[in-house]
């Protein structure tokens, strides 16, 4: 809660600096604000031992920052911190756009800590509306315009569907907050009478949220939007928006509708996840544009994250999802930072731009390969730890889902091998020269690579952390 207020004030400051044309201060201020918010969150998390009462801060009864939501918001803040570090020098980005990024982060934090459907709706909208602007930030380019209008129309459309679901749920249960929904769904689950109103409401909400996380029947906007948007907006969509949407998704469905489980929404999630994994990877293996490829691979990764909903124990599910998201975000950040570096050298986001990367840029290539290993899920990377945790939890409930996931992973090897092929194996006559990287970009890449390797090598440390928090 305090972190939310700090970030909001920081975002206002950035907007003010944008008006005053003092843009050189804006990135340091944003970084400082995020660091302050992160340290407050960490202190609140760690003070559990100091303060025996469970830390649960309520805000008007509509938000509740328990441990899972604190951890999710910490992840969101850390990824925005790294994204801002890796941005090109300030000239290319006005302070007002920076402020919009921070406002969007506020929405993400709301979404990870809501207990009332009004707050969920506001969180989704505060997360999305600044991004509609950011996607169209390159006003002169037709592709940026097209990405913005597609993202806007699809976003508003899915919000309307989600709201219709909320209205049905409200009519069916008479309640809008998570405790009331939990009680109502407990009654319905045990007396085996989910009314048609509740049934269709849950499915409509599910459709709205699957739109937001870009899972397969509702994924069609994401490749176009990822390709057309400016890099900074794309990396934000690929990491923070996806993580925040999942935080809200698992909170609503595990806490609110958890008791309705089997008949109503679980099967829809499972089918969507299996199709996403297989078709997402298959489509990704046919792409020639790196940003499009990452959009399709993001769809496949969404499928894996949806598997985390299947497990029996709520806190286990949240923890597995967090680990998986951490791995996905670190790998994505590495790849996007490299795309951004190539972009500032005047290269396009085509896969061919990676040709001969390995000759003069050993460090970047190493980071790229580690990130790709993590996406595939090769042991000793965090991707493996996350996939292992999610799949073992799902194995006892739906064994065939694990088979679908493994088939998808096998197709996925081909996808990520594309990068390897261009960066290392191609025998080109004029390989890329030594690329200029700023200190911030080096820090981002090094930090993400370290996270991937360290957690991958020592999963037990993370398991101990889990004992601490849950």
């Amino acid at each position: 809660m305090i972190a939310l207020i700090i970030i909001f004030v920081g975002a206002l400051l950035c907007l003010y600096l944008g008006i005053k044309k003092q843009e050189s201060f804006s990135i340091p201020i944003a970084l400082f604000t995020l660091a302050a918010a992160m340290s407050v969150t960490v202190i609140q998390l760690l003070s559990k031992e100091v303060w025996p009462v469970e830390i649960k801060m309520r805000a008007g009864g509509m938000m509740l920052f328990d441990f899972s939501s604190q951890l999710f918001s910490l992840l969101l803040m850390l990824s925005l911190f790294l994204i801002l570090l890796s941005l090109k020098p300030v000239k290319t980005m006005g302070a007002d756009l920076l402020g919009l990024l921070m406002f969007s982060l506020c929405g993400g934090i709301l979404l990870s800590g809501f207990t009332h459907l009004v707050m969920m709706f506001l969180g989704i909208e505060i997360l999305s509306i600044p991004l509609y602007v950011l996607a169209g930030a390159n006003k002169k380019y037709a592709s940026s315009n097209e990405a913005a209008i597609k993202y806007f129309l699809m976003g508003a459309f899915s919000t309307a569907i989600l709201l219709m679901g909320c209205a049905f749920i409200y009519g069916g249960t008479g309640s809008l907050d998570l405790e009331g929904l939990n009680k109502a769904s407990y009654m319905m689950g045990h007396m085996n009478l989910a009314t048609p109103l509740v049934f269709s409401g849950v499915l409509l909400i599910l459709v709205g949220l699957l739109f937001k996380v870009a899972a397969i029947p509702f994924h069609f906007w994401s490749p176009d939007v990822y390709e057309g948007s400016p890099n900074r907006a794309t990396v934000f969509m690929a990491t923070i928006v996806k993580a925040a949407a999942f935080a809200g998704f698992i909170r609503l469905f595990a806490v609110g509708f958890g008791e309705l489980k089997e008949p109503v929404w679980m099967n829809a999630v499972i089918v969507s996840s299996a199709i996403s994994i297989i078709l997402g990877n298959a489509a990704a293996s046919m792409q020639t544009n790196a940003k499009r490829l990452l959009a399709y691979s993001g769809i496949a990764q969404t499928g894996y994250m949806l598997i985390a909903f299947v497990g029996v124990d709520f806190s286990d599910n949240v923890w597995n999802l967090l680990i998986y998201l951490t791995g996905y975000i670190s790998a994505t950040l590495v790849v996007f930072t490299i795309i951004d570096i190539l972009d500032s050298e005047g290269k396009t986001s085509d896969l061919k731009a990676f040709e001969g990367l390995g000759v003069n840029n050993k460090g970047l290539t190493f980071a790229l390969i580690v990130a790709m290993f993590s996406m595939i899920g090769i042991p000793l990377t965090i991707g493996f730890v996350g996939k292992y945790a999610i799949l073992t939890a799902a194995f006892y409930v739906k064994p065939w889902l694990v088979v679908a996931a493994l088939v998808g992973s096998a197709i996925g090897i081909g996808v990520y091998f594309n990068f390897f092929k261009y960066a290392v194996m191609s025998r080109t006559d004029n390989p890329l020269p030594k690329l200029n990287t700023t200190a911030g970009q080096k820090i981002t890449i090094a930090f993400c690579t370290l996270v991937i390797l360290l957690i991958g090598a020592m999963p037990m440390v993370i398991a101990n952390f889990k004992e601490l928090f849950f």
Partner: protein
Amino acid sequence: MSLLETGFHIFDKVGISNYLFLSVLLFCIGLFGVLYRRNAIILLMCIELMLNAVNLMFVSFSSYLGDSNGQLFVFFIMVVAAAEAAVGLAILVSIYRNTRNTDVSFLDNLKG
């Protein structure tokens, strides 16, 4: 004598199912409009129609259940719809400057 004291309730005259049918009908008109029309301004209007159908449903449920949470939700939907319309129209203006057109079927550069 006020309406409340007479025990008069709006749903005595016109049952709640009529309100629900009307709002679902409006929602479906908006939904099919989004799917079939190609002019961006009409798409925006259709999305507004969908949101207002949701508002109608929230208000009628709220009145039926005697609970104020639904009406609270309606206020937030109206505020957010206004913000969304502002952003959407701004995006449309920047598209119109580049293409001199508001037809979304011309926007097909991104493929693959």
